[in-house]
């Protein structure tokens, strides 16, 4: 059995070795917030955090990250309370079709955890691996900036 720690919860799974983390999250655990799109490391829809860093789950073997800290979009809200990034995306109308949103939010979370007051260039660089086919980048950048300010206020 392989132990995966996802959103602070342990899952013991009979993995064979060749399953990608993307497949395990969606097909075995029902965590479908992580999206399948290009499956070719081009779009960032499958972004998750591993040990607080944004990585692509379509390029990650699930067995290779056993015991490491995996965060998916399902792990951000606390009950009914949205994460400040999720709230900022709603407030700024940064969600259109929503397909890229989980990846965008997780990539932004990795940035804000390190740097709560990023410049626009730093935001653009942190999200450079996430494509939005609706083209709503400016609102997304605004939302990330706002979330950083809100988080900084909360931390006081």
């Amino acid at each position, binding site marked *: 059995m392989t132990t995966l720690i996802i959103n602070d919860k342990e899952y013991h799974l009979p993995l*064979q*070795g*060749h*399953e*990608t983390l*993307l*497949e395990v999250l969606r097909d075995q655990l029902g965590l479908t917030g992580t999206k399948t799109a290009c*499956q*070719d*490391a081009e779009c*960032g829809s499958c*972004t998750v955090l591993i040990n607080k*860093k*944004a*990585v*692509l789950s*379509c*390029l*990650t*073997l699930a*067995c*290779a*990250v*056993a015991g490491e800290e995996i965060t998916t979009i399902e792990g951000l809200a606390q009950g009914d309370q949205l994460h400040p990034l999720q709230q900022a995306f709603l407030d700024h109308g940064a969600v259109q079709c929503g397909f890229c949103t989980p990846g965008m939010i997780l*990539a932004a979370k990795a940035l804000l955890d390190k740097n709560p007051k990023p410049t626009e260039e730093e935001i653009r*660089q*942190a*999200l*450079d*691996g996430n494509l939005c086919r609706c083209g709503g980048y400016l609102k997304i950048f605004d939302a990330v900036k706002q979330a950083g300010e809100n988080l900084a206020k909360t931390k006081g």
Partner: protein
Amino acid sequence: MLLNPFKFHSPQKLEEAVSLYNSLPGVRILAGGTFLINNLKLLKKKGLKTPENIISLRRIDELKGISCHKKELSIKALTSVSELYSSLSLLEYSQIFKAVSRNLATTPIRNMATIGGNLMCRYCWTEFPALLIALKANLHFIATDLKEEAVPVEEFFKNSAKSEKILTRVTLTLDPQNCICYQSVRKSSSVDIPLLAVCIKTKFSKKRFSETIVAVNNGTSFARRDSVLENFLNQSECSIKTADESSQHLDTSLYDASRDDYKEHMFRVTIKNTLRELMTGRHP
């Protein structure tokens, strides 16, 4: 399933990895995975044979980190491109590593990709070979008997980047006199694969170039040194005139001009700009 089945191995010690690598059939090494996993998907799509065994190096702590002892900088093979981008442990080379790392792909890829994987994946157009040739780096491989072998990076790429051994680290000698500049040309800002790249390292001594190394990457064959240009620069004064004349002193066989006639011209411009940046001190 995106991948064909294989047996997955995740050793915690380097010697265990070496033993597995030497004993298992149809084996491939997994470092960051950004090249290998996509390659395995492609092989499956094309119905081609895929490896029976994959050895992940991820849990081997001996292969992680950057350290400096006396004047030798050691970058372990599993150091990620993001770590190269942000590490202050690279000392006087941190700015040039930052500049080169930033050219490579996107943030999540840089978080995953490792320097070891980048050098061993045998892609001609990757960013690090030209930089490491200019810095006269050595690659350290571990053999079956666990003895380490150092190979100059220039020699490694001359031999088509082939090795049956596991890369453990890259070493460089720190030299505060080194001035170094790297420039690459891309088709557009959204395409991360460079068409060509030039890295020039030199020392300025009494307004002259000395100990100059020019490494060029034409995107279609492994990075090489241009000794014709190096000789010209080492006999020249440090001046804008030299930068302008440099494009007349190239080893033209390196520049892949047969396939793309624009490429040699782009190289001439890039070399001139790189030298100008070196002389004006605006290089990273």
